[in-house]
């Protein structure tokens, strides 16, 4: 079990020190957010399609062996200013 550490100005920090974030919200950020460093110095990340991993983990039922085709064509992330 992992708990989250404090961030500045978290309103609930004192009241709920054991708050655990939902895995789905965390994976939204870790698999489609975060700086992507590419180039030959990166050993592995560039060759693994994390969007695909994310789709399997987040959308396709974990117990299902076969990914749903309509899901794999879903847009991964749109960005607006």
């Amino acid at each position: 079990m992992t708990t989250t550490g404090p961030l500045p100005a978290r309103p609930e920090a004192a009241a709920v020190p054991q708050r655990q974030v939902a895995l789905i919200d965390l994976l939204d950020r870790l698999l489609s957010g975060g700086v992507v460093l590419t180039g030959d110095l990166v050993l592995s990340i560039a060759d693994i399609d994390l969007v695909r991993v994310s789709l399997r983990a987040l959308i396709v039922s974990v117990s299902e062996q076969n990914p749903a085709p309509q899901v794999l064509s879903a847009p991964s992330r749109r960005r607006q200013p």
Partner: protein
Amino acid sequence: MTAGSLAYTYAVARNADALRQTVEGLIGVGGAPVHLVHTTQGGDVVAAVSHVPEEDFDEAALSRHLEDLEWLEALARAHHRVIEAIAACTTVLPLRLATVYLDDNRVRTVLDDRRDVFLGRLRRLAGHVEWGVKLYVDAPPIAPTPSPDLSPGRAYLRRRRAEQDSRQDAFRAAERAAERIEAVARVYAVDRVRHRLQEGELAVGPGVNVSNDAYLVPLDQADPFRADILRSTDSLAGVRVDITGPWAPYSFATLQEEGAP
């Protein structure tokens, strides 16, 4: 550097006195201690790194492991714990999950080469937090059984009509809530990223997720932003807003030069 280990890199951060203390005793992926890697010149930009076994993080192993939800969750939570600890004491630029280098020297080279780009983005994110805002539409309630006087055909049509009306009302309410959220964002937020709608087994609901956005908000506006967002569904039936955070600015940790993932 131990033989057979790789440098798992969590984040680039602005160096700060408090950071050294924070990292001391901080445990990362696989229970390994986290340490800082500095630029060759020392100074303002550092990377948070821990060593992971090569057999778990080489390309083939990583592809395999990432398909294993339990393994993925352990990795994600370990990564997140380090990011949160750093975010508590300085500005942090989280890296994408599972960014792995051969050794600390390679990490240092990246820091040296991109120091200015990192600093620029860190400057932009300083003093900001990320909030997650999700809107849900409730599943339509079961329509009341129509009067028994109606013929089965008419009863069916009336029930269908009632269900459609209730669904349309809920989506109209969601549109209204989305407008209110946009208005709140115009006041407080400096940036927005739209994430994919949440569905599948990990989506806990209740209801159907109709928007899943991240907002970058100045720290001193974080509380009023949250309060106003929570009011965005006031007096609207069939729609629910969920706010998560504050997060380290994961969704806004991007670099100008980076291509689309």
